[in-house]
């Protein structure tokens, strides 16, 4: 491996670690730890294994074909067949973007005491300016490096000395001792937050932006396994911290205020500020990714010019999509929607729509004409088959669980 690829691998892993954790992971991990201690770790582990495979596949696809997924799926299945997954993906992008903006606004509310709605438009302008003025590399690297602040959760988890036996027991699925509807609702929401549909579509577009070719397939594998693996460690740490700090006090997370003191036992002076900063930065990175992902998907669906590295004048429609998306999503918070409730609903919807998004992707990964020797092998296809069954189950149960298990 040459120096350039080694750098890409290192940077990719940092991106994976810093970019993995977002508002969905934070909300669902805090809820899981506070309400069920270590009992839902299995859900996070299951989601992590599946997302590693999905991200590896999407990067392999982009490296082997030099095409982003929506572009190829539209060409392969035709515009009409791609239309339903595209519309579903657009709805998910819109809701996730609203949740991430809500997370940034709430973090600012924690520090300033001003209501989150006050911050909606300033945050929207900041996000837009960032996207308008920056290149893909700047966005990817700066937010990922700042995102390493979320490692504060890992340090806090270690400082709390969680009981190893209970941690290991949580890695195996088990039935809840109380509140089964809430248990399964959180389990589904964790899967929805880890298997965020935008993630693998965004990753393939990013690989095209970074001009990957077949020689990057090994780098891609390393990034997918190490980046996503270490990234999920932060979500695991958030479950542990919530289990050690909130659960013994009888605090359940039905509002972000209840999660905000999570780090203050491990870091008495800085814990509160660290939580707010980690929340803001994780959400900022994710919001930029989601807004870009929405532009990528739309531009690739309609065959427009696209690329964050292009001047906005060269891909005006691409730039217009993220401009509109940021403005519309920020209205959800401006009009007073509760950021946590929006996030949890969005994570359940993420899980519910997974089949629509994953099926065309998994079908195209088996196209040997397009991918040649890089098409899915039996291991990837076995995981894909399992994912499809799981996705269909999630599609059926997630919305009813929101009704009975969501607070």
């Amino acid at each position: 491996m040459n120096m350039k690829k080694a750098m890409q691998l290192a940077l990719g892993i940092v991106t994976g670690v810093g970019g993995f954790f977002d508002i969905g992971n934070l909300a669902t991990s805090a809820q899981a730890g506070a309400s069920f201690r270590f009992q839902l770790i299995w859900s996070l582990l299951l989601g992590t294994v599946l997302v590693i495979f999905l991200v590896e596949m999407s990067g392999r696809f982009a490296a082997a074909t030099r095409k982003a997924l929506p572009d190829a799926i539209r060409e392969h299945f035709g515009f009409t067949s791609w239309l339903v997954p595209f519309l579903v993906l657009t709805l998910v992008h819109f809701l996730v973007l609203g949740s991430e903006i809500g997370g940034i606004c709430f973090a600012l509310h924690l520090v300033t005491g001003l209501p989150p709605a006050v911050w909606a438009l300033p945050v929207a302008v900041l996000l837009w300016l960032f996207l308008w003025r920056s290149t893909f590399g700047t966005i990817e690297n700066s937010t990922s490096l700042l995102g390493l602040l979320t490692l504060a959760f890992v340090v806090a988890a270690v400082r709390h000395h969680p009981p190893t036996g209970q941690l290991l027991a949580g890695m195996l699925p088990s039935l809840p001792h109380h509140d089964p509807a809430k248990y399964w609702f959180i389990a589904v929401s964790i899967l929805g937050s880890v298997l965020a549909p935008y993630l693998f579509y965004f990753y393939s577009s990013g690989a095209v932006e970074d001009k990957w070719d077949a020689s990057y397939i090994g780098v891609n594998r390393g990034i997918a396994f190490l980046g996503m693996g270490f990234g999920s460690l932060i979500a695991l740490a958030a479950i542990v911290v919530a289990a050690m700090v909130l659960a013994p006090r009888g605090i359940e997370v039905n509002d972000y205020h209840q999660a905000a003191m999570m780090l203050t036992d491990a870091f008495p002076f800085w814990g509160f500020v660290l939580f707010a900063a980690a929340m803001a930065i994780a959400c900022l990175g994710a919001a930029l990714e989601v807004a870009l992902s929405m532009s990528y998907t739309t531009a690739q669906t309609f065959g427009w010019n696209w690329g964050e590295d292009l001047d906005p004048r060269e891909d005006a429609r691409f730039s217009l999509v993220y401009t509109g998306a940021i403005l519309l999503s920020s209205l959800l918070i401006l009009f007073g929607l509760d950021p946590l409730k929006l996030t949890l609903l969005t994570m359940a919807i993420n899980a519910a729509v997974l089949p629509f998004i994953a099926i065309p992707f998994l079908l195209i990964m088996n196209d040997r004409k397009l991918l040649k020797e890089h098409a899915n092998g039996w291991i990837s296809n076995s995981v894909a088959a399992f994912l499809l069954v799981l996705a269909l189950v999630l599609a059926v149960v997630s919305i009813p669980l929101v009704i009975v298990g969501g607070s």
Partner: protein
Amino acid sequence: MRNVNSLQSSAARPCGMILILMAAGTILACQHKSPEQELLDKAGPAGSWIATLQMAGEKWGANSVPASFVKTTCKAAGKDLDQVAEEVKKSKARPEVRDPLRQLISQAQAAGTSLRKAAEANDRPGVSQQAGQLAALRQQFEAWKKSVEPP
């Protein structure tokens, strides 16, 4: 292409809706509870908020959170406690189960308001006193929960 089209066929949509409705029905059927158990579920957020207010007071006393956070947390707690109080009022649970909870929530609402005022006034002994009051309320809440929970 055939696979994708078949998923989007008109026949698949009612089938999917039926499955979702069946899942919802099954989950709801499994949720059938007595009025006392329903009250126990609805009271859950109240216990959690009492514990949150206590922690916010203690952390403010230890200089771990700012006064503005205590203020906004008290406001958020007040809103949710009002909601729980309304639910309790409408509950069909036996009065000997329901009334102690009503009293507890009303005391928690008062303690939350006093905590907010004490933090705003930078009154450390006042905040400490309210945190102690909330700790006592939390213990009472746990005792109430135990008395209602099925053995």
